[in-house]
C-alpha cells in the first residue's frame, strides 16, 4: 500500500468542494450549462479519488482511469468555456 499525503489532501479538499456544491445545489444548477461544468468537476474529483485508490489496489487500472478522467474532465471544461463565454445571453439567462 503506497499512500501519498498530497493525494489524500487533494481528495479531501475535492470532497469539501463537493459538499459546497450539494449545499448550494439550487444555485449551482442555475449556472449556464451546469451539467457540463459539474460533470467536469465530478470527473476531476473521481480522478483525485482514484489517485489515492491506485496506491491500495488495482494500481494500473485506477491509474489509467485517473488519467482518462483528467483528460475527459478537461475536455468538458473546454466545452463549457466555449458554450458560456461566447454567448452573453446564455450566461446572463
Amino acid at each position: 500500500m503506497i499512500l501519498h499525503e498530497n493525494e489524500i489532501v487533494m481528495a479531501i479538499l475535492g470532497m469539501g468542494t463537493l459538499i459546497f456544491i450539494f449545499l448550494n445545489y439550487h444555485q449551482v444548477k442555475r449556472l449556464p450549462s451546469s451539467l457540463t461544468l459539474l460533470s467536469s468537476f465530478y470527473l476531476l474529483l473521481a480522478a483525485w479519488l482514484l489517485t489515492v485508490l491506485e496506491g491500495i489496489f488495482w494500481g494500473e487500472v485506477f491509474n489509467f482511469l485517473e488519467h482518462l478522467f483528467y483528460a475527459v474532465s478537461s475536455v468538458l471544461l473546454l466545452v463549457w468555456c466555449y458554450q458560456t463565454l461566447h454567448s452573453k445571453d446564455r450566461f446572463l439567462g
Partner: protein
Amino acid sequence: MILIESIDALFLAASGAAFLLVLQSLHRGYPTLKNRILLVFLLLFIFIYSACLFAEAAIINTSMDEFEDIVGALLPMWWAFVLYGLTQEIANRDLENSERKFRTIFNQTFQYTGLLDLNGNLLEINTTAMEAVGAKRSEMIGRPFWQTAWWSHSRRLQKKIKNAVGKTASGKIVRFEASHPAAAGSLLYVDFSLKPVMDRNGEITMLIAEGRDITEWKRATVEKEKLEIQLRQVHKMEAIGTLTGGIAHDFNNILSLILGYAEMAKDGEQPGANTSQELSKIIAAATRAKDLVRQMLTVSRQMKVERVPISVASMTTEVLTMLRTSMSAGIQLVYDIDPDCKPVLADSTQVRQIIIHLCTNAIHAMEESGGTMEITLQNVFWGEADNRLGTNLEPGAYVVLRVSDTGCGISPHVMDRIFDPYFTTKEPGKGTGMGLAIVHGIIGDYGGAVTVDSEEGKGTDFAVYFPAIKQAKMAAGGPDKALIFEKERILLVDDEEPVLKTGRDVLEQMGCQVTVRRTSLDALATIHNNPDVFDIVFLDQSMPGIDGADLARRIFSIRPDLPVVLCVDSPSSDHEEAAKSSGIAAVAVKPITQSAIAELMQDVRITSGEELDRLN
C-alpha cells in the same frame, strides 16, 4: 504507457485550449471581472497540472513532482472559489432584476409613493411624485417629509403631516384628503395615506407614504353637484310654472266675473249714483289682481309679450337717470355703459323691470351702510370652447348687464333660493320677493341667463346675459287703436256657466246678439244648422271632449270664412301656431275686459275685411 501519454497529451491540449479561450474572452463583460480572473487561474492551474502529468508520463522531467503537488492542492480549492463566485454572480443578478422590476413598478405607477424613516425623513420617493410638483430628488431625499415641496403651500398640512408621522410611527394608519402644489401652479388634490412597514419580528422599520391623485374626480364631483343644483332649480321652476298655470286658469275665470260685472254695473249706473266709487275700487282691485297673474305668468315663462329689437344701453341710461334721484346720499353710483352694445330682441317694459329690480336690490343692500353701486353694460362673445359660466347658454353674442354693489351680500345658505317667487330676506313691506323671480323668468324666456356672485358682508354681483341680435331696426311706437262699437251676432262657447253668463252679459251690453253654448257638440250642431247666422265665434280652448282649436277646425269645415277668437288661460307659442295653422282669427288671453273684446272684434273685422277684399 503510450496510451497514458496520449491521454495526458489530450488533457494538456484541452486544458491549454480552455486557458487560451478564457484569456481571449477576458475583454468581455461577463462573467464579472473577478470571476473571469478566478476562471483564468483555475484553467492555468489545470494546465500546469496537466503539463506536470504529461511530463511525468513522458519521463521528460521528474523533478516537477513537488510543483505538481502544490498545484494539485490548489485545484479543488480554486474550483470552490470559481463555483462560489459564479453562483454569487447569479444571485446578484437575480437581486438586480428583482430590484429593477420593483423600481419600475415604484416609478411607473400613477400613485405618488415615498418611504420615510421613523423620524419622518424622506428615504425614497418615486418619479411620479417628483414630476407632480417639479421637485428634484437630490433636494428632497433626507429632509423631513413635512418640509418637502409637496407641502410647501400649506402650514396647516405641514403640521398635519408631522402629527401623522408620529401616529404612524406608533403603528397607526393615517389617511386624509390633502393637496399638493402642482408644477403648473394649480393645486393637485390627493387621497393621502401613511402606513407603517414592519419587519419579520413585527417591529416598525419605516413608513410608506402614498398619494392617489383625485383632482379629476373632485372636479367631476363639484361639476356634478352644480348640475344637480341646476337640475333641481329647473324642476322647481317647472313645478312653479305648472302650479301657476293651474292657478291662473281658475283665477282668470273668477276675475272675468268680477271685472265683467263691475264694468257692466259701472256702465249701467245712473249719473250721480253713490256706488260709482265702490265699483271703481272693485275694477281697480281686479285689475291689480290681473297684473299679479301677469307677474306669476312672467315667472313661469308663460307670459307672452311682443318682442322687438331694442337698445339695452339707452334703457339702462334712462332707468339710471330716474334712479339717481331716489338714491340716498351714502350710495355712490358708478357706471360704464357701452353705447355700441348690440340690440336685443326683448320687450322694453320687461327690460326696464330687470334693470329696476336689480338696481333696487342693490340700493336696499347698501341702505344702512352705504357703498358703491356699479353698473356696466358691454358686448361679449362666447365661442364653442369658452366656459359659459356653467350656464346653458348657446355660443354667440350677448349683451351683459352687470349690477354690482358693496352691500351686505347674500348668505350662502339662501343663495339657492333667491330666484324663488315670494322668497325675500327684506323686512315686511320692503319687498315682495318677486323681483329676482321675475328677472329670472324674463331672461330665461329670452334664452339668456342670470348669474350671481356674492360674498356675505362684501357685496353682490349680478350679471344678466341678453342674447344679442346682429341687425335690427329699433322699435317704433305702435299705432293707437281707437275703440269702435259694432253690433255683431256672436256665438259664445265655454264649458263654465259663470264665465258664459258674464260673457253674454258683457257682449249684450255692448249691443251684440249673443248665443251661448256649453259644449262643443252643441256649438257645432248650431253652426251646422244655421251656418250664416253668426258674425264672430268666441271659443274657450279648455273644454272637455273637443277643445277650442279642434272645434274651430270643424267650424271652418262648415263655414271657412267665419272669424273665430280662441280664448286661452295663458298665452303660449303652441296656441299661436295652432291658431295660425287652423285659420283662427285671434287668440285672446282671459280674463277679457269689455274694452279688450271691443278691440278684438275691431281687429277681427278689419282682418276679415282685408281677407274678403283679397278674395274678391
